[in-house]
């Protein structure tokens, strides 16, 4: 090695009369050699990768067609096809197994009754369930998550305890995926993990828990019990769930949240109360209005549209003149418009008034071409 370096330097010296430049030129030449090799390697990887991908794609398509055909044959015509499928799994190619699992998952999600069960039997007898189980034991978290997904989608409830270990995993994705899997595997109490939910639940987690819950078609539990939670993010989640599933029996429990110090929590509570559509919510909303922030006032006004009556219309009129915020005034005007003929009459009066800003707002709200739905703030 030393000999080679010395040969290299003497070669550089031959070209460079200025001895001071020899070291520097040697260094640059070394880097150039490194870069040339690097370029060659990187670009070769690019070209080889492309060729491999193209070949794999062809193989995948071919194999998938065979696997899909065999599984469908087993499912709808001949149960003896199970032997062929067992042989295919015996090939021990992870690719074959994975293709089978992927297809089984799709079929399992879309079929009902005896086919549903047949698929589950096939999944277990071909030991593909073990194949998925091994993924859970894998150290790579993304493989583990894949295992959770496969087993839960195939309704293998024996693994509930195994997955349970991961709901407090340090990796937030593993922890979330374990919870999503358990929603499906615990149909009697799908949201039980909310009892002990730790930390702040991100909106992403809420989106996924809701999605998984909705697609699992499990019975919606009584959500009131989680309104006792100390975790603010769980409370926010449950308030939206109560609103979505219209659990009117939670009305009294939701009511107390309008007095909480947390503005966002009050916001969600107002929305939920209004959505439950019980007349008694109207008084609560109107009473809370004066002490609320502008944002929450907007949501109260928007919620009041659920309730009609002269008192509400008077309330609108009073605040249309007193409030300064443009969006709030717009909400109030929309509230008036939602009150039928009487409300529209009042809006015409506003349009004829001298207040230019109010005139514009009234004209906007009265213009039925502007679609109402797209106007509401969320």
């Amino acid at each position, binding site marked *: 090695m030393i000999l080679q370096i010395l040969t290299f330097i003497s070669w550089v010296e031959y*070209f*460079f009369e*200025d001895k001071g*430049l020899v070291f*520097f*030129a040697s260094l*640059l*030449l070394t*880097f*150039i050699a490194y*870069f*040339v090799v*690097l*370029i060659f390697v*990187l*670009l070769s*990887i*690019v*070209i080889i*990768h*492309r*060729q491999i*991908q*193209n070949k794999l794609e062809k193989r995948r398509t071919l194999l998938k067609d065979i696997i899909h055909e065999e599984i469908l044959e087993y499912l709808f015509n001949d149960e003896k096809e199970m032997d062929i499928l067992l042989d295919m799994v015996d090939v021990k190619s992870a690719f074959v197994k994975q293709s089978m699992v992927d297809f089984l998952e799709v079929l399992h999600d879309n079929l009902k009754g005896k086919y549903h069960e047949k698929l589950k039997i096939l999944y277990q007898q071909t030991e593909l369930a073990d194949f998925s189980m091994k993924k859970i034991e894998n150290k790579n978290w*993304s493989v583990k*998550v*894949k295992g959770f*997904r496969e087993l839960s989608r195939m309704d293998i409830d024996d693994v509930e305890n195994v997955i349970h270990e991961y709901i407090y995993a340090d990796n937030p994705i593993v922890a979330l*995926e374990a919870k999503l899997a358990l929603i499906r595997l615990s149909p009697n109490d799908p949201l039980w993990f909310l009892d002990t939910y730790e930390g*702040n*639940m*991100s*909106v*992403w987690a*809420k*989106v*996924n828990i*809701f*999605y*998984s819950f909705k697609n699992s078609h499990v019975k919606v539990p009584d959500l009131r019990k989680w309104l006792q939670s100390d975790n603010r*993010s769980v409370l926010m989640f449950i308030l*939206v769930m109560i*609103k*979505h599933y219209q659990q009117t029996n939670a009305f009294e429990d939701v009511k107390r949240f309008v007095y909480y110090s947390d503005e966002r929590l009050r916001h969600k509570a107002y929305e939920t109360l209004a959505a439950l559509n019980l007349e008694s919510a109207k008084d609560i909303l109107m009473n809370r209005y004066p002490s609320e922030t502008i944002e929450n006032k907007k949501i109260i006004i928007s919620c009041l549209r659920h309730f009609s009556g002269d008192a509400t219309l008077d309330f609108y009129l009073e605040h249309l003149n007193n409030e300064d915020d*443009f969006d709030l005034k*717009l909400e109030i005007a929309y509230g008036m418009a939602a009150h039928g003929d009487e409300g529209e009459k009042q809006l015409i009066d506003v349009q004829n008034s001298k207040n230019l800003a109010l005139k*514009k*707002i009234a*004209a*906007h709200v*009265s*213009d039925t*071409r*502007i*679609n109402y*739905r*797209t106007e*509401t*703030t*969320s």
Partner: protein
Amino acid sequence: MFEEFTGLFNNYYESVIFLYSLFLIAAYVTMCSISGISLWKYRQKNRFVDYNAILSSPFAPSVSIIAPAYNESKNIIDNIQGLLELMYEDYEVIIVNDGSTDDTLQKVVEYYEMEPVNYAIDYKIPCHEINAVYKSKNRSFQKLFVIDKTNAGKADALNAGINMSKKDMVVSIDVDCVIERDALLRLVKPFLEESDKTVIAAGGVIKIANSCTVSEGTVEQVRIPDNWWARFQVLEYSRGLFMGRMAWAYLDGLLIISGALGMFNRKLLIECGGYAVNTVGEDMEVVVRMRRIMAEQDVKYTVAYIPDPLCWTEVPDSLPVLARQRNRWTRGTIETLLAHRRIFLNPRYKSFGMLGYTYWMLFEWFAPLFEFSGIMYFLYLIIVHGAVNWKFFIVAFVFIYSFAIALTSWAILFEELTYNSYKRKSDIVKLIFTAFLEPIVFHPLTVIWAIRGNIDYILGKKSWGVNPRHGFTHLKKSET
């Protein structure tokens, strides 16, 4: 005496250039490594993401898409169609006709059966008076609004759109871009994921659509551009967007979300004053200002960047247009950096001030200046001293050339291993061939354009310059 001075100057100058080059190369190598890690982590994390979960979720935020349009008659109908067919539940599309002198407005009004409505607008952010707001009579287009206003530039048009928007998030886009169907779902995800920080803005990768087949607002076939200038930009975009911005997002020092497509928290955007109308680099300025305000208010925040290709744009394919664009980019960068100079090396702004801003100043603004001065110095050595060590010059040149190609090769590899947009082997070969030409053909021009940008900045030039588009329909015809 003079010779002594010039000798001393030469020594100092050469040392400065040497150290600068060393730092620049180190910065590029570091960013390349970081972006590789970041890209890998992103791919791992999003491997199992089902974006359908966001669709119809009561937890998903609503979105206003704002697209300023100035003389976009060629593509406007198709592109609006594309925007109306995005995969997202609660969103509205606001097209701002910024005083077009062609028939942009008439075309939209006729095709989408629009009529003026009595829309009351609250001018939360100052902008030029809005002449009219149009809404379609056809309920199929109920998501669509068109604002007509007098011409006052892109930033002013965006501000008009923000004033009209009613949703939680604002997406600013160039109306001549083609947006991927699931772009909103992908862009909104970073806002949903963070529970401890506020995400103020998010951006994604912009891809080049020249020579691609586009139909009804969707890119159907991806091709390497036939035009060489556009082809050079493919490599430039890959390096800049895949490597540069990915690395800066990872270091939480990202200073820019591309004006072609970016999502912002609407409330914060309004609180920060919307887009600045006195700069030609409004996309960079707004991100820097928002970051600055967040840091000064001690808010825990971040700017997200996702490496998914979300948006396709037609880049300039002629030298004069390209020169104008780069000139404007340079002026925009200088304006933003100088307007927010207090951020420079200020620990209060954390990595954004200590790393991001410093990098942009030293290596985005100053790099062409250093490079140009190096060329001048080289010419001075030849003319005045008549003696240059040509052997060493060649070694140094080959070193820089091979480094540039190595860096581009990494970008091509990242592209191949992740999204491999270019499926044809011939496209990959073309890309590789272009990589060998880019440092000697395209790069020197970018330096000249940047120098012109600096001069124009000093002269106080504020113009945007016209950027004529061929239009995607034309591209489709040429393909078929």
